[in-house]
């Protein structure tokens, strides 16, 4: 084998993401954090917002986009999606903290482009909700056109992990396999057990390190990627994003996190978040909710589309997410529903899909508003983005135009399946439960 080993060198380092330069002139700029600026120019250099003002001129060779009469808003951020990855659920155990959807990114997923055509520049590709502690998620940018999975990572974004409470984990593991948890009581136990194991694990590792320092002989403890990950959560290095619906289970997790000293958590879906809005606000937790989905299962029966408004009014940092490859294409419209249901202001509604999800993902220093120094992730709309008639025209990621309604050809596939018929049709009229994707193929035949 020596001959072969001669060829074996290190893989190349991750490639640099393309950064662009642009001048967008005369748009109504919806900064989100600094109000609305009429007839304003935004200059982008090397992928960052360099200047915001009037009468800006484009440096040599920099493309100018005339945007008079149009609306420019920060790139939309979806705090909950399952696109751009090829595995969603490792549904084989109630705790799978060791797995990571960042290992299975798919930059060729056409749904990433379609979301981009709806103004989404960043999304949170999440593990599914089959397990109490699922896998780690990955925050990605929709850099459509790139084919190397490394290039769609949101470089530098904090690590996050998926938890899930309630019906999904109790159905998959308890009712499906006879493995705890089968109840919401069991869910709490699984969480406390896992965190405690992680504490013990960390102690063993610390003992070993101390022994090494002191020159004491000691058998090295086993390495456990799952417990390493859980210990990192306890150390505050991984942000928790938990699938949750009912008020009681939200409160349960708050107590558990408090007991273990975990400070950053965002409750995903949280259809009953409105019932415990004061508690969420007091903890400093985020909520990432649907605009109006409910009644698809019992734990979302007592829901209200006024959820986002109630949470916002009670001081909970709230976002509106998609969890769905169709909904992700019009999050601006989903945010607008929070005006219908609760009368949020334009800036409050826009914050639901920009700066608030950015905060929940720990990337609000980089994206989520139009400010000098932030990433040039921008969407140009015909019509105000909170109008139901709004049509996104251009979506820009790091100053690079990645979606152009006028210029893009119809067929934007990066991968053409040579074995597929050209008239292959797929209908998705039922909402696919993406959170539970892959579960059915892992022996859980009772799921659809």
């Amino acid at each position, binding site marked *: 084998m020596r001959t072969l080993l001669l060829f074996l060198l290190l893989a190349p380092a991750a490639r640099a993401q393309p950064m662009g330069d642009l001048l967008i002139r005369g748009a109504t700029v919806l900064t989100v954090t600094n109000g609305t600026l009429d007839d304003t120019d935004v200059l982008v250099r090397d992928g960052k917002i360099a200047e915001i003002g009037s009468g800006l001129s484009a440096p040599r060779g920099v493309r100018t986009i005339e945007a008079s009469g149009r609306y420019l808003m920060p790139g939309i951020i979806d705090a909950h999606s399952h696109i751009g990855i090829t*595995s969603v659920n490792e549904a084989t*155990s109630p705790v799978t903290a060791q797995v990571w959807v960042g*290992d299975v990114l798919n930059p060729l997923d056409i749904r990433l482009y379609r979301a981009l055509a709806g103004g989404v520049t960043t999304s949170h590709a999440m593990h599914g909700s089959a397990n109490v502690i699922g896998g780690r998620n990955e925050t990605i940018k929709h850099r459509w056109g790139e084919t190397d999975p490394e290039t769609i990572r949101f470089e530098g974004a904090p690590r996050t992990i998926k938890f899930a409470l309630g019906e999904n984990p109790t159905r998959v593991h308890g009712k499906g396999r006879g493995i705890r948890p089968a109840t919401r009581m069991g869910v709490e136990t699984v969480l406390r057990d896992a965190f405690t194991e992680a504490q013990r694990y960390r102690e063993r590792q610390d003992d070993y390190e101390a022994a090494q320092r002191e020159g004491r*002989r000691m*058998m*090295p403890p086993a390495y456990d990627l799952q417990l390493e990950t859980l210990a990192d959560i306890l150390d505050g290095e991984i942000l928790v994003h938990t699938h949750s619906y009912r008020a009681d289970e939200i409160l349960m997790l708050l107590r558990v996190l408090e007991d273990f000293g975990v400070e950053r958590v965002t409750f995903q879906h949280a259809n009953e978040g409105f019932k415990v809005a004061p508690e969420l606000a007091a903890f400093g937790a985020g909520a990432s909710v649907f605009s109006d989905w409910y009644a698809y299962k019992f734990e979302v029966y007592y829901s209200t589309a006024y959820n986002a408004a109630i949470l916002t009014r009670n001081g909970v940092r709230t976002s509106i997410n998609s969890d769905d490859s169709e909904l992700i294409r019009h999050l601006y419209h989903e945010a607008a529903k929070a005006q219908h249901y609760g009368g949020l202001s334009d800036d409050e509604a826009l914050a639901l899909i920009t700066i608030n999800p950015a905060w929940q993902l720990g990337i609000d220093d980089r994206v989520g508003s139009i400010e000098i120094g932030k990433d040039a992730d921008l969407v140009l709309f015909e019509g105000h983005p909170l109008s139901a008639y709004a049509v996104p025209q251009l979506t820009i990621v790091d100053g690079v135009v990645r979606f152009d309604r006028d210029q893009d050809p119809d067929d934007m596939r990066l991968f053409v399946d040579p074995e597929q018929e050209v008239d292959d049709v797929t209908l998705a009229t039922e909402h696919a439960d993406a959170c539970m994707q892959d579960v059915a193929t892992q022996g859980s035949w009772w799921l659809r």
Partner: protein
Amino acid sequence: MLRSALLVALVLLALPARAQDATPKDPGVRPVTRTFAITNARVVPSPGRLLERATVVVRDGLIEAVGADVRPPFDAEIIAGDSLTVYAGFIDGLGHAAISDPEKKENEDKADIDPGHPPRDRAGIQPDRDARALLKADDGSVEALRKLGFTVAHTVPHDGMLPGRGAVILLAGENADALVLRGDASLFAQFEGASGVYPATPMGVLAELRQLARDAERRQEGERLYADDPAGLQRPVSDPARAALAPATHGERPVFFSVDDELEAHRALAIADELGLGLVLGGLRESTHLADKLATAGVPVFASLNLPKAEKDSTATDSAAVAPPTSEVFITERRTRSYADVDDEVDALRAKRREAIGLYERNAATLHAAGIPFGFATLGAKPADIRANLRRIVAAGLSEDDALAALTTTPAALLGLDRSLGTVEPGKMANLVVTKGSYFEEKAPVRFVFVDGQRFEIDEDKGFDPEAEVVVAGTWEYRLVTDDGVQTGTMTISDEGGTLGGTVVEPDGATHTMESVTLEGNRLTFRLPDTPFGAVDVSGLVTGDTYTAEVTGPSTSPITFTATRRPE
């Protein structure tokens, strides 16, 4: 699904042979000589070189002499090589030669297993398993590959993320041990999740690889400490799986990662980089966006011989057939505004798919252009398609010399066996392919294959006459001969203006509709698509009112199928 007798017969053949106490074993007759001389042949000693009217002498498993002025020894059997071409035997870089696919253990013992913590074999983590222990000299794949000119194969076990360690074997031998050229050739890895248990997804596979590799380091450290002085230390628990991983994680044994597409290739590159694995990619089908990264990483590749089906021959109504080059049709801002543009859209989509098929056909040429060392892998390829696919690969821009290098010298070097394999030179192992005409031409049958000096006469095409005009329509009585007896039934073939179709009806009435019925000269082939084992292919020759054919399926050895036409 009707579990028909035909299918039962196919299954039984796939099972291991049972003890048959009283079956007489014909000892046969020993060969008169083990020395051969192929005279007056075109010899390709290595890619790019050619010796006209040369003689190759094979003795005792080795090549003794090669050249125009070589005289055949007196003890040699002479093979008149006029009109024949001699190549070095081909080498399969990654496949499952001589190792059959075990039955899946889908729902076995499910109740007793915690799906989160399954036993290693259920999880697909068996790096300690050795391909050598799984070899079967009479596995159908050995002959199937040999007939195509393959003489050596790097073979790996089936199933799961770490199915085991690979071996380099000869594609002929008395028994399993005799096949082995080299054991411990590789660690085989794939993104194949376990069924219903952890790790069930490619995501789980990657996490588990990380876990195994990092924990293996810890354990080794513990074992060193304990070996040094066990006093006061807990004993390290024996763990053959992790022990078997150590050479791979230390870069001492190459990890052959089965990767189907670019995404999987990226993932394999990333995890290999992270864990310091010596990576080889096997079975890669397409690499357009990947070639630069592979070249930079210096990772060798065994490109897949499994190509997507070529676009069917366009009929007169298919305007795409005469459409301008694909680039003009779709690369630019093609729009389908409304129903009026739909016909053009179909043409454009077909063109785009042709282009995609082309990317697969050009895969090897792309790798070559990027300077990436590559061979070929039969993994996932049907033996029946391999020669045609090689022709497509050559037609798509890989020169015949480079294709030959990828079948001989490059895999020999990548597998570390270039001192004994890969060329037709004195002193090398007598692995040869002898064809009538260039191997890369369509009507150039393989006549002989030598493996380790043993001669195999390939008579696949004996009796095949491409010019023959035969009539196949009618009702036939067929006989299917298996170890378990003989089945008879009827086969009906219709010919409607040149379009062939038909059915095979078993005695119990089970009916199979033929697909892809083709008649080339006197060779009739068809496919029976709807068996629980996937499609089964039947191919054979028609002589007068008799049809003699072989049935091949995805997991079976060939079965003989004969038919006689019923008089009108």
